[in-house]
């Protein structure tokens, strides 16, 4: 089954979804959002795209190393904790202020890095489960 309409619209939705999930991730400390929500949003967007095209095409486009992504996410979160450990206690968060060109004052929370790790884990795991099940599904049929 293919659908011209869905195939045409899905990329736009995907871009929007990804962008929106970045937004949720980046501003989660000030508004609803955060790593989980953003991660789930990203995964759901990719899943939609995958549904719109067929399995083979989906695999070609989104053949990312999801296991690596969730492991990296976990590692990032753990290392953030270890950084806090160096600073006094495990998972102690610190805030660093930078002056960046074009953007201006930036506050970097180590907690934000932690959240990025969470994001990675969520995306990686959901997509890992999804791709594995898809593979199963296509093998079966």
């Amino acid at each position, binding site marked *: 089954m293919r*659908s011209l*309409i*869905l195939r045409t*619209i899905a990329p*736009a*939705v995907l871009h*929007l979804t990804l962008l929106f999930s970045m937004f949720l991730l980046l501003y989660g400390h000030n508004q609803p959002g955060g790593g989980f929500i953003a991660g789930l949003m990203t995964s759901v967007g990719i899943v939609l795209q995958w549904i719109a095209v067929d399995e083979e095409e989906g695999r070609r486009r989104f053949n990312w190393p999801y296991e690596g992504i969730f492991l990296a996410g976990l590692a990032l979160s753990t290392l953030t904790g270890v950084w806090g450990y160096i600073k006094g206690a495990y998972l102690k968060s610190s805030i660093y202020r930078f002056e960046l060109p074009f953007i201006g004052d930036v506050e970097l929370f180590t907690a934000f890095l932690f959240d990025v790790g969470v994001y990675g884990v969520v995306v990686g795991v959901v997509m890992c489960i999804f791709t594995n099940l898809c593979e199963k599904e296509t093998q079966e049929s």
Partner: protein
Amino acid sequence: MSDALAAILLLGGSFFMLVASIGLIRLPDVYCRMHAATKATTFGMGGILLGASLIFQSTTVTTQALLAIFFLFLTAPVAAHLISRAAYKRGPDLCDDTTHDAYGKYLEGRKAEEESPQRYGDA
């Protein structure tokens, strides 16, 4: 003035949402219901969101509301298309008053084509 407009937008939007739901109950088959569900809800949501952006008087809300509206308009028809097509393929279940069924004929033709051996015999 802007308050009044906002109120009208809100009430109108909600009203159309209600209409959509009534349509969902009253209309005879899934395709007709889809008409109500797609058009009226999208329209109604547009009204409510615009009303909200008028009330909040905030750039963020306005831009986000606009994005949401844009998104709804982008996706609602796609959803309608997908569902109605799926519904048709599961078993047309068109209501008794239906007069024309061009899609059914098209599908039959395609099916016959797929089954005919000549199609592959050409090569």
